[in-house]
């Protein structure tokens, strides 16, 4: 068990890119983890003052409260288009967004696909928790068949809604992107019920750093983080971590889909 007392900075250290605002993210949510990984990478690459965050719509809408960088709000799903507008006008800036599955893969699929087709030198982090979190647990494009949500009370039916959409596979199928990677971000169970493996966060840290490096090299970088939403999945936090490993990771297997610049080898 991790003790809750004390400020996180005492344990994890200060980051210039991280504000001291406590996050609104629910306990156990990987958004918090990713926020720190992004701040850490921007600090390490010394990019904070040359970066623009494009806020998406969903649980990451408050990202600018936590990440101490210039920020602009995109309409729902349109972040990649706003990012393209910034980057085309100011190629010297590092431009990134944290999008949810509903934002990036449903209402904003066109914007995502065409930014990828053109190979815009931008960085997109997709938090795929298989559900609409902020609106209260409706079916997402990535919801597994059978999962009960507020809009699929009898479980998602493939005959009605089709199967879940694999964003990384779709984006990697295009010629434009330079870097496409999927990481299972949650801690994963081990044979001991008391011990969980945090390898996902380490892989995530590397992927975030690489995604920014790829942008600096002029490429489109897309990293999907398979994540949890225990609140809307109606599970305990520990159950949600097991579900991510046992179910989601089978539908969305982690892996490197594309690495045109070979950043993973460097």
């Amino acid at each position, binding site marked *: 068990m991790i003790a809750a007392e004390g400020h996180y900075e005492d344990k994890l250290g200060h980051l210039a890119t991280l504000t001291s605002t406590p996050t609104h993210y629910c306990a156990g949510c990987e958004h918090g983890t990713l926020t720190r990984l992004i701040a850490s990478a921007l600090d390490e690459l010394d990019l904070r003052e040359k970066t623009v965050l494009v806020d998406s719509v969903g649980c990451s*809408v408050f990202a600018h409260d936590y990440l101490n960088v*210039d*920020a602009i709000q995109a309409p729902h799903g349109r972040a990649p*288009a706003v990012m393209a507008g*910034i980057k085309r006008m100011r190629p010297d800036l590092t431009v990134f967004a944290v999008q949810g599955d509903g934002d990036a893969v449903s209402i904003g699929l066109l914007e995502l696909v065409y930014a990828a087709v053109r190979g815009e030198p931008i960085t997109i982090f997709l938090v795929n928790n298989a559900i609409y979190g902020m609106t209260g647990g409706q079916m997402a494009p990535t919801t597994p068949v059978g999962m009960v949500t507020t809009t699929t009370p009898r479980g998602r039916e493939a005959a009605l809604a089709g199967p879940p959409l694999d964003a990384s596979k779709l984006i990697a199928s295009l010629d434009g992107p330079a870097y496409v990677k999927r990481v299972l971000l949650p801690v994963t169970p081990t044979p001991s019920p008391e011990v969980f493996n945090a390898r996902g966060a380490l892989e995530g840290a590397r992927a975030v750093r690489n995604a920014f490096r790829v942008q600096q090299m002029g490429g489109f970088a897309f990293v999907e983080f398979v994540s949890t939403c225990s609140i809307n999945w109606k599970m305990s936090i520990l159950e949600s971590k097991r579900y991510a490993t046992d179910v989601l990771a089978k539908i969305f297997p982690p892996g490197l889909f594309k690495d045109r610049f070979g950043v993973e080898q460097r």
Partner: protein
Amino acid sequence: MSAAAEFLKGNEALALGALKTGLNAYFAYPITPSSEIPETLATEFGKPEWPDFKVFLQAASELEAINMVMGAAATGAKVMTATSGPGFSLKQEGLSFASSMELPMLIVDVNRAGPGLGNLGPEQTDYFQATRGGGHGGYPNIVLAPSSVPEMASLPSLGFSLAFRYRNPVIILADAFLGQLKEDLVFPEVPTERFDVSWATTGARGAERHILSSLHLDYGEQNRFHEHLEAKAEEIARLEQRAETYRTEDAEVVLIAYGICGRLCRRAVGMLREKGIRAGLVRPITVSPFPRKELGTLVERGVRNFMVVELNMGQMVEDVRLAIGGRARIELVHRTGGLLPSYLDIVQRAEEISR
């Protein structure tokens, strides 16, 4: 050598006019009858005479284009896009967000006939959508209405000035006739204005970071933002009303028309004068803010007969009513579907009401 007259379509003139005012970026999605604007800019892109013109990009949709405009605008760039009818509807999401983040930009609507696909002929049926703010949430739009090819060329300069001065989107509301009409014009000399863009999101760079957000979860904060927008709208209405008046000094019947109808009415005023009828014309150049002061002055001088001529079912009549407030008679001559009223229609009706 003095500038020679060029013979250009309205759309081409607008594109070149925007370049001459220092356009930085254009994001395109083709739609008839506005497509000559992106076509002209695509041709001009990269030429040494336009060093400020950094970006021309065709988007995959109207939505993508307006959101790219938003991104470029956030860097403080002079950025423009153009569309028509169905595309203008799709731009409304972006206009709502751009208004909420107070981003300067220039949006051109070459009004075609509608609703739906309608046809490719001229209408002024997007008047409400443009002047009232066609997106959600309530916000002011600045709307400029050119009436000739030279004005298609000159209004982008005014548009950018207003957009940056008030940090607000500006719409140029043209129509299919003006977009396709060819006329002689001499481009005016336009100084390339530099604007204060200290609010732009271009990286903190040792200073306080900037956040452009439309999210105000606190009800009081959202309320204050609406009050701020309203104060801005009032200032714009006070300072920026623009209209051309023609022979109104002694007029007994005053025509009110913008865009292509403004041209028709100018000629009609002459025809009426030849018949001994003291006619005049008020041609709004800003349809938002609507030139209420000009109309109010005429009513106070005793004008009791006004006649609106427009290519819709009488949308601008509402603004005229608000300006005149029941103190004078307001008639309407209108055509839709791509048709224009004839001089005869305008002259006969004006004769009737002036009897």
